[in-house]
């Protein structure tokens, strides 16, 4: 229970929210009472709207992130392992790294329209860079002694890559993926707010434009909660995967 007691300040904020709106300190137009928001959220959940839009959002984020992890890891490790790849790709990665990824929203929409494809492409392009950098740094930081001893024991280059370099790079790759996970939610929600016909971000914009603010707040809180839970689950997974290290 000590773990939950830690979150007491959140409960205090919730109570303050409810009290301030009920007492009329804040206009309920600007901030609907928390209880109304929860009720609206329950209604959305019961009607199935929330689940349908959440499924479409999570599919986009999941597919984009999975592709970004595969491509990013492969590119990062290849850059660390083969000099020609590094010479070719390093300046390009350096060039794309500081690009504000949200600038890609209009072009992915131009290419693939307003559906799933454009969101997935946006997330792949945006989330690839942190994974690539993590994989590159991790694979480069691999101890040469380990590589040499594996080689001297007759392991082939590919074998060394798979059995020595990749496990060594794993912590940094996983850290890069964590950054990518957070980024994927940001890109997903903003692209859905701007150009979409389904998804949680679209729902927020749609409900807000219709003036049903209690429902809009409910979806905003759902998105926030999903992002938070995804990060927590990922951290648990990371501890599991890296348990062999210590």
């Amino acid at each position, binding site marked *: 229970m000590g773990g939950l007691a*830690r*979150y*007491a*300040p*959140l409960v205090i*904020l919730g109570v303050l929210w409810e009290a301030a709106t009920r007492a009329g300190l804040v206009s309920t137009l*600007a901030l609907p009472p928390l209880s109304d928001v929860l009720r609206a959220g329950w209604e959305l959940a019961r009607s199935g709207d929330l689940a349908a839009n959440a499924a479409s959002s999570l599919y986009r984020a999941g597919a984009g992130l999975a592709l970004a992890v595969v491509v990013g890891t492969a590119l990062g490790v290849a850059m660390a392992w083969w000099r020609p790849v590094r*010479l*070719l*790709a*390093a*300046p*390009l990665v350096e*060039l*794309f*790294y*500081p*690009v*504000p*990824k*949200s*600038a*890609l*929203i*209009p*072009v992915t*929409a*131009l*290419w693939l329209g307003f559906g799933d494809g454009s969101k997935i492409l946006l997330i792949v392009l945006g989330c690839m860079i942190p994974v690539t950098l993590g994989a590159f740094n991790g694979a480069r930081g691999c101890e040469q002694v380990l590589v040499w001893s594996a080689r001297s024991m007759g392991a082939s280059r590919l074998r060394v890559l798979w059995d020595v370099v990749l496990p060594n790079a794993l912590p940094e790759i996983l850290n890069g993926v964590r950054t990518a996970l*957070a980024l994927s*939610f*940001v890109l*997903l*929600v*903003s692209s859905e*707010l*701007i150009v979409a016909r389904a998804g*949680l*971000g679209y729902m*927020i*914009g749609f409900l*807000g434009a219709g003036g049903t*603010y209690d429902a*809009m*707040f409910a*979806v*905003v809180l759902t*998105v*926030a909660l999903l*992002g*938070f839970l*995804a*990060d*927590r689950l990922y951290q648990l997974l990371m501890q599991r995967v890296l348990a062999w290290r210590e």
Partner: protein
Amino acid sequence: MARIGPILASLTRWSPVLALVLAWEALARSGIVTPFMLPSFVAVARRIGADTASGELLLNLGQTLYRALAGFGIAAAAGIALGVLVARYRPVRWFFDPLISVGFPMPKIAFLPVIALWLGYQDVSKITMIVFDSIFPVLTATIAGTAGVDKALLWSARSLGVGSRRILWEIVLPAALPEILTGLQVALPIALIVAIIAEMTMGGAGLGGAMMTAMRFADSPGVFAGIVETALAGYGVMQIMALVRRRLLVWHAEVLAPAAA
């Protein structure tokens, strides 16, 4: 003549970028993709030239940078101040620690319509959104940095009778500076990303607004010009930040030993 070497070296280093541009141009001209999907690089460069000549680029760039940097500045000042308070005072830590751990991984951009509802569609709401989003890395970096200060330094300063305010300014903050700067380096691109998103959703010109207009009119050279412009702006701002880091940490071992960056 002695200067030719470095120029040649940087030319070879950046040649993949040149190759990318050439590949872009070749692909656009080959007819495999329509000019709508990928306008030629020359057309995009010409558009950027026209935007520069008409002053539109400067105006939009100024708007975006103003919003991003104002938000970043507020987030930096408030984040460092709050971070020091959280690290120092128990009640502050009790209240903010759970909020930070919940708020950091949360996609705060979802609150954009809420902030627009409260503050309207002007710069205030855009800057507020940028502060809300970019304050978290500064906060966590400041807390980690100030908590990690060598205790021996604090004890010796205290035993010499140094006041707590001077300890903060002369020992804690300088010692935490590398980590704080890392936090700022994470926060800066976030500020730019959010500035562009806010401009795309709320309008009000800027590079994001201009790209949105171009997209609505199916003006693909305009969209690609916007991407190149934002990319250059992002690159420039990050380079300046890296320079500031090197300047501020001249005394630090990190700068003395050339890191592989």
